[in-house]
C-alpha cells in the first residue's frame, strides 16, 4: 500500500481506509474500452486528462492499449502494487473482477457500473454479494451505480468520474446520492466560479455512505464546508452523532449543508396517534438536521448561496447588517428581506454618520441602507464601505449595484475587492449583489475570482447571511449533557412486558407514567357508581370520570369522559348514564371499569409524544395541545435521547411559545416542568423500544412554580 495517510489524531481506521479512494498513487480501471463516448472509455481518459499524479493501468481483456496506455487482460497481470480499483465492467461480472482485485491486494474500489439494487431483486442480491466480498476482505467500496470521485488536491488531481470536466479547486466538499445531479452541480458550480476540494457520488451506498464521508471530510484539511444531497438515510442516529461532532467540535468546526429529497415516512398510514400523524411529515427530518447542526436547503441555488458565504467569508459575528446600494428600491427590498429573515439593520455610530456626510452628496441616504444614489462611481462605494467596515456596530456588509449609464461596474467590482482585502482582518462578512445579467457579468466575474460571494438577488444574499448567523448561534449554544433520572423501571417493565401489541389500557398507561415520575393526580379504577362515590369522597371533588376499555380509543367521541363533577349526586348520575351509553357500543366484558380522577385545575394545554421513525428511531414531539393540535401543527420533534438544552429549545421553538411565556399580563407557565416531562419521556422511549407511539394530550401546565399534570395518555406497543 503506497497511500499517503493524513496523520490526524482520532481518525478511525475505517476512515483512514478512504485515503486509498481519495489519495491513491496507482489506479487500475477494470473494463475499459476503446469506444469514445462510453463510460468505460471516458472515465479512463478523464483520469489522464486531469493529469492524475500517480500511475493508471487499464484492464481491458484482449486489448493491447487504451488511449496509448498499455492494457492488461486481468488486474492480476499488473506487475506493480495498485491502491484503487475502478470497476466499469457490466454489473454481471463485477463480482468476478472484485475478487481478483482482492487477490491483487487492492484495498479500495469504486464501482461505477449499474445493474445492482436499482434494477430489482437480481440486482439487490448481486449488491449483497459484492458488499460481502469487499467487507470480508476489509476493502472500502464506493458505489455501485455512481458517477465516481474527484479530488482536486494538486498532488493528487484525481478525476475518477465520467463528469465532463474536472472542477476548479476549492474548499467545498460535496457528496451526493444522485449521480445525475452531480454532473448538473459541476456545471452549475463552474458557471459560478465555485471550486471543490472533494466531490463524491455515493451511488447505491453498498459500503461508504454519507456518515463515512462526513467523518472523512471532517478530517480533510482542504475542506471547510460540506454539502450533501441525500435521498435516503439508513444510519440515522450515526448521522446525527457524526454531523453534530463535525459541526461543533475540534479547532475548526465545519458547516454541513444538505438537501434532502424524496423523504417518505414509512408507516405513516398506520400511525393512529396525533404524534404519529404529525411525525409522518418531513418535519422530523427538519428536526434531525437542527439537532445535528445541519443547515437544510430546499434547492441547489439556496445550497450554494449559503455554501459560498460560509466557504469564502468569516462567520458573521452577529445579525447587524449594513447595506450599501446605488438604488433605493433594491435597498428597500433587501432591508425587508433581511428583517423578515431575522437579521437586524445596523445603527451607525456618530463617527460613521460624519464620514458618510462628508463623502456622499447631500441627496444620498446616510442611514442604513446607505443609498450612494444612481450616479455613484467607485469612489462613493469605497467611502461608504470604509465607513461601515470601520463601524463596530456592523457585523455584515451587503453591497448592491444596479447597472445605470454612469455606473463604472468593473471599477466598482475592483474597488469592492480592494476594500475587502484592506479590511480582511476586521472579521466582517461581505456579500454583493450586482443585479442583472449581461451588463454586470464582468463585474460579477471579478468578484467571483476574488472569492467574494455574489448573488443576483439581494434577498438571496440576506438569506445566506441569516443561515451563517444561525451557524454562529449553533456554535455558541449551551453545551449540555443528558439528565438521567432514577425511575421505577421494574413497574413499567412489568406492565409493558406482559401487554400484547396494541394500545395499553389507560390504567396501565398511567401506571407506566407514574413509574417514570410524571405528575399525575389521584385516580382509581371503579366498577360501580357506589364505589366511584366512595373514591371521590376520599380524593375530593371535583372529579372526572373516564372509561377504561381496550375497545375505546377515542373516549371523548364515545362519551367516555365526563368532567368537573362537583358532588356525589352529579357523579352517580353521570356514572350510570355513561355506562348505559357505552353498552350501546361495546359489551360489558369490554369495559374494564371507570376511572375516577381528581379534576385537574385549568392551565395551558400542551402535547408531548413519542413516535418510532424508521430511520431515526424514537422521536419525541412537543407542541401546543388540545383538539386543534393537528390543525395548527405547531409542534417540534427531536430524536431521542435529548439533552437538557434540547428540551429547552423544543419549548422555545414553537411558533406560539409566547403563549407559555405569558401574554397580556398572564403569569408565565411552568416551562421547567414541561422540560422535565420531555426529558423523562426521552428516557422512557430509550428504555422501552416496544413503545411505538405515545401521546400525552393534553399535559396541563400550570403557572410557573406550580408544575403540570397529565390529563390523558395513550401508549401503543409494537414489537
Amino acid at each position, binding site marked *: 500500500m503506497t497511500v499517503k495517510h493524513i496523520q490526524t489524531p482520532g481518525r478511525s481506521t475505517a476512515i483512514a481506509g478512504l485515503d486509498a479512494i481519495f489519495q491513491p498513487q496507482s489506479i487500475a480501471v477494470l473494463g475499459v*474500452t476503446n*469506444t469514445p463516448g462510453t463510460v468505460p472509455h471516458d472515465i479512463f481518459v478523464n483520469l489522464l486528462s486531469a493529469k492524475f499524479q500517480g500511475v493508471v493501468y487499464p484492464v481491458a481483456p484482449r486489448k493491447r492499449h487504451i488511449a496509448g496506455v498499455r492494457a492488461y*487482460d486481468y488486474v492480476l497481470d499488473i506487475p506493480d502494487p495498485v491502491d484503487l480499483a475502478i470497476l466499469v*465492467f457490466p454489473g*454481471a*461480472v463485477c463480482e468476478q473482477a472484485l475478487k481478483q482485485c482482492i487477490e491483487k491486494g487492492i484495498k479500495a474500489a469504486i464501482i461505477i457500473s449499474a445493474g445492482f439494487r436499482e434494477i430489482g431483486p437480481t440486482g439487490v442480491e448481486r449488491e449483497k454479494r459484492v458488499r460481502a466480498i469487499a467487507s470480508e476482505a476489509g476493502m472500502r467500496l464506493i458505489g455501485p451505480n455512481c458517477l465516481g470521485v474527484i479530488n482536486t488536491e494538486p498532488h493528487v488531481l484525481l478525476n475518477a468520474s465520467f463528469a465532463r470536466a474536472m472542477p476548479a479547486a476549492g474548499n467545498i466538499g460535496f457528496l451526493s446520492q444522485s449521480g445525475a445531479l452531480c454532473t448538473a452541480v459541476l456545471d452549475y458550480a463552474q458557471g459560478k466560479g465555485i471550486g471543490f476540494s472533494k466531490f463524491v457520488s455515493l451511488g447505491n451506498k453498498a459500503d461508504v455512505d454519507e456518515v463515512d464521508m462526513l467523518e472523512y471530510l471532517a478530517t480533510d484539511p482542504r475542506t471547510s464546508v460540506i454539502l450533501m444531497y441525500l435521498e435516503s438515510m439508513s444510519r440515522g442516529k450515526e448521522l446525527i452523532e457524526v454531523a453534530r461532532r463535525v459541526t461543533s467540535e475540534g479547532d475548526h468546526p465545519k458547516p454541513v449543508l444538505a438537501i434532502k429529497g424524496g423523504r417518505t415516512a414509512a408507516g405513516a398510514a398506520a400511525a393512529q396517534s396525533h404524534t404519529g400523524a404529525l411525525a409522518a411529515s418531513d418535519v422530523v427530518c427538519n428536526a434531525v438536521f437542527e439537532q445535528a447542526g445541519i443547515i437544510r436547503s430546499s434547492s441547489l441555488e439556496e445550497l450554494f448561496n449559503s455554501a459560498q458565504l460560509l466557504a469564502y467569508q468569516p462567520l458573521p459575528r452577529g445579525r447587524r447588517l449594513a447595506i450599501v446600494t446605488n438604488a433605493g428600491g433594491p435597498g428597500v427590498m433587501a432591508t425587508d428581506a433581511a428583517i423578515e429573515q431575522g437579521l437586524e439593520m445596523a445603527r451607525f455610530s456618530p463617527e460613521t454618520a460624519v464620514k458618510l456626510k462628508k463623502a456622499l452628496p447631500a441627496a444620498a441616504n446616510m442611514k442604513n441602507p446607505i443609498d450612494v444614489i444612481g450616479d455613484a462611481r467607485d469612489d462613493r462605494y469605497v467611502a461608504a464601505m470604509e465607513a461601515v467596515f470601520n463601524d463596530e456596530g456592523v457585523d455584515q456588509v451587503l453591497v448592491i449595484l444596479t447597472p445605470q449609464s454612469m455606473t463604472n461596474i468593473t471599477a466598482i467590482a475592483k474597488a469592492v475587492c480592494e476594500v475587502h482585502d484592506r479590511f480582511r482582518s476586521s472579521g466582517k462578512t461581505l456579500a454583493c449583489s450586482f443585479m442583472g445579467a449581461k451588463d454586470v457579468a464582468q463585474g460579477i466575474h471579478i468578484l467571483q475570482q476574488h472569492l467574494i460571494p455574489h448573488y443576483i438577488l439581494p434577498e438571496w444574499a440576506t438569506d445566506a447571511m441569516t443561515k451563517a448567523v444561525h451557524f454562529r448561534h449553533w456554535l455558541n449554544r449551551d453545551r449540555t449533557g443528558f439528565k438521567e433520572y432514577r425511575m421505577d423501571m421494574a413497574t413499567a417493565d412489568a406492565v409493558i412486558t406482559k401487554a400484547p401489541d396494541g394500545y395499553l389500557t389507560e390504567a396501565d398507561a398511567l401506571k407506566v407514567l407514574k413509574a417514570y415520575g410524571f405528575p399525575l393526580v389521584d385516580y382509581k379504577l371503579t366498577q360501580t357508581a357506589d364505589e366511584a362515590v366512595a373514591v371521590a369522597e376520599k380524593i375530593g371533588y371535583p372529579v372526572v370520570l373516564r372509561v377504561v376499555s381496550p375497545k375505546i380509543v377515542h373516549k371523548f367521541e364515545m362519551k367516555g369522559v365526563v368532567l368537573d363533577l362537583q358532588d356525589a349526586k352529579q357523579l352517580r348520575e353521570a356514572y350510570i348514564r355513561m355506562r348505559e351509553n357505552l353498552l350501546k357500543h361495546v359489551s360489558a366484558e369490554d369495559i374494564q371499569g371507570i376511572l375516577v380522577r381528581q379534576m385537574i385545575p385549568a392551565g395551558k394545554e400542551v402535547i408531548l409524544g413519542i413516535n418510532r421513525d424508521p430511520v431515526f428511531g424514537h422521536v419525541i414531539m412537543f407542541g401546543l395541545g388540545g383538539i386543534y393540535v393537528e390543525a395548527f401543527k405547531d409542534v417540534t420533534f427531536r430524536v431521542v435521547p435529548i439533552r437538557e438544552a434540547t428540551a429547552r429549545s423544543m419549548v422555545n421553538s414553537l411558533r406560539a411559545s409566547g403563549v407559555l411565556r405569558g401574554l397580556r399580563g398572564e403569569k408565565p407557565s411552568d416551562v421547567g416542568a414541561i422540560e422535565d416531562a420531555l426529558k423523562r419521556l426521552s428516557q422512557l422511549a430509550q428504555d422501552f423500544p416496544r413503545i411505538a407511539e405515545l401521546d400525552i394530550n393534553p399535559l396541563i401546565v400550570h403557572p410557573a412554580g406550580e408544575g403540570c399534570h397529565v390529563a390523558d395518555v395513550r401508549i401503543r406497543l409494537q414489537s
Partner: protein
Amino acid sequence: MSQKEILDRVKAVTARVLGVDAGTINDNSNFIFDLGAESSQSIELVAAFEEEFSIEMEEDAALAVQTVGDAATFIAKYL
C-alpha cells in the same frame, strides 16, 4: 447436432466477432471478463449465433449468458 459441434461453432463465431484467437477460447471463457466483449459486441454476438444456427433467441436471456460453454447449452435449447 452434438454438444461438441455446437461448442466448436460457438467458439469459431466468438473468435470471429471479437477478433480473438480461437485457440485461446475455452468453455469457461467469459465473453466480457476474459474475452473483452464490449456491450455492442455482445449484441453482435447474439446476432451472429442466431445466423450461424438459424435460430431466433430471446434477447435479454441471451445477453445474460456469460460464458462460451453456457452459450452452447443455451443455443442447444433452440435446436
